[in-house]
């Protein structure tokens, strides 16, 4: 935890948790926020009812490595796609996006194709999710190291 002589690729992962639609079920996302914190990450929670634009704004302002989207209301195909489209429109290709919530198996290939990985459902062990986020963040940090 010594801040000196640190390498960018080894610094704490910064993750944004967001529910980008009308969905007030935030118990699960609080559990995740605490789990990520306990795994040594810097966690930002976007609050209830953020618009996809606000989610992308926050991600850019805070320079997060991973956006973790969660929806339990069935709007994931629309709302997650919105987030991806805004990211693409702003030319952001160096932020990983992972998904989760109540997502039927038949939707998962389409989400993967958009670039949203993970797509975990209820009952997934926390360490599986943490490992996945950490792996995606690692890829992103390596990508960024050559960027500027």
């Amino acid at each position, binding site marked *: 935890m010594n801040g*000196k002589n640190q390498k960018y690729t080894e610094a704490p992962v910064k993750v944004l948790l967001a529910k980008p639609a009308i969905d007030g079920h935030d118990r699960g996302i609080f559990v995740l926020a605490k789990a990520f*914190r*306990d795994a040594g990450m810097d966690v*930002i929670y976007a609050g209830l009812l953020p618009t996809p634009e606000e989610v992308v704004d926050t991600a850019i302002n805070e320079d997060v490595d991973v956006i973790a989207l969660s929806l339990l209301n069935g709007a994931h195909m629309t709302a997650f796609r919105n987030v991806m489209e805004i990211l693409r429109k702003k030319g952001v290709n160096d932020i990983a996006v992972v998904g989760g919530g109540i997502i039927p198996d038949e939707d998962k290939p389409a989400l993967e194709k958009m670039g949203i990985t993970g797509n975990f459902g209820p009952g997934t062990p926390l360490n599986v999710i943490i490992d996945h986020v950490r792996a995606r963040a690692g890829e992103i940090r390596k990508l960024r190291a050559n*960027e500027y």
Partner: protein
Amino acid sequence: MNTEILVQGILRGDYRAIARSISLIENSGYKVRKDIISRIYRYGSAKIIGITGPPGVGKSTAIANLAPSLAVHGKVAVLAIDPASPFSGGAILGNRIRMQAALSSKGIYMRSTSNRLYNGGLSEYTWDIIKVLEAAGNDYIILETVGSGQADIDIMNIADVTCVFLAPGLGDEIQAIKSGIMEIGDIFVINKIDREGSYLAIKDIRESLNMSNKLETPVIGVNSLTGENYDELVKNILEIKNKNPREKYYRKLKMVVMEAIYDEYSDYVDGIEYGDNSLDEDPYTLAEEILGKNSNNLRKIKSRQQEY
């Protein structure tokens, strides 16, 4: 890594470049930081408005009111610091939730950072991050500390105006005359003025200011839900003159000198093996010897110090 592109982005005010350079400053050690800061040091100057106070008095909510009102007078940016966990090093950066709506409608840049277990209410590289925000052309930078205890007073060394936020019912007049945070305010703000006991809170603080002959220090009651009295607060903030930048500069210089020495010698010290006979000597003598061995380097640092 191409710092020049990054620096051009900062000077243009490009949010992605600003955000990335802040991450690099936080995460990548002495040399990268020097590379960035040395290129942008001459650009920009802003009024730094420090917001401090105990957890839960409404600092973040207050910024949601304050930032848009200041945006009328110039370009505003917000930097908010939250504590890291002493067990895992992770952090929940929750300041943003309170101000998101107010900020994104005005396009105000806001960044939350973890204090990475640094004591004093700020993070170790707050000075550097503020330099980046200044170079990006901001006129006002609102700096929110960790919810502070009585002794987290680093903010007064970096802010031009320190606003101490309090709420009714936090303590009696003995609390108000204590040392530490109650002495550093340029403005005292009592939030949640609609609650019971707000009159007593204002009275206690006025009395203690009177005792230390600082009665002219403003004590302002505000209501963050309705925005009541925020115009008064903004007026007072704008009236207070910026502090002499030299004092801030010297403090940072001292920190950097210590870090430069650390950077220079830590590898060397790590390289000494446990079996080495030199470890028979007491650590004070050995330390002086180590510095003496590389006295050329130390002299270089010293002569640079005199130039400033």
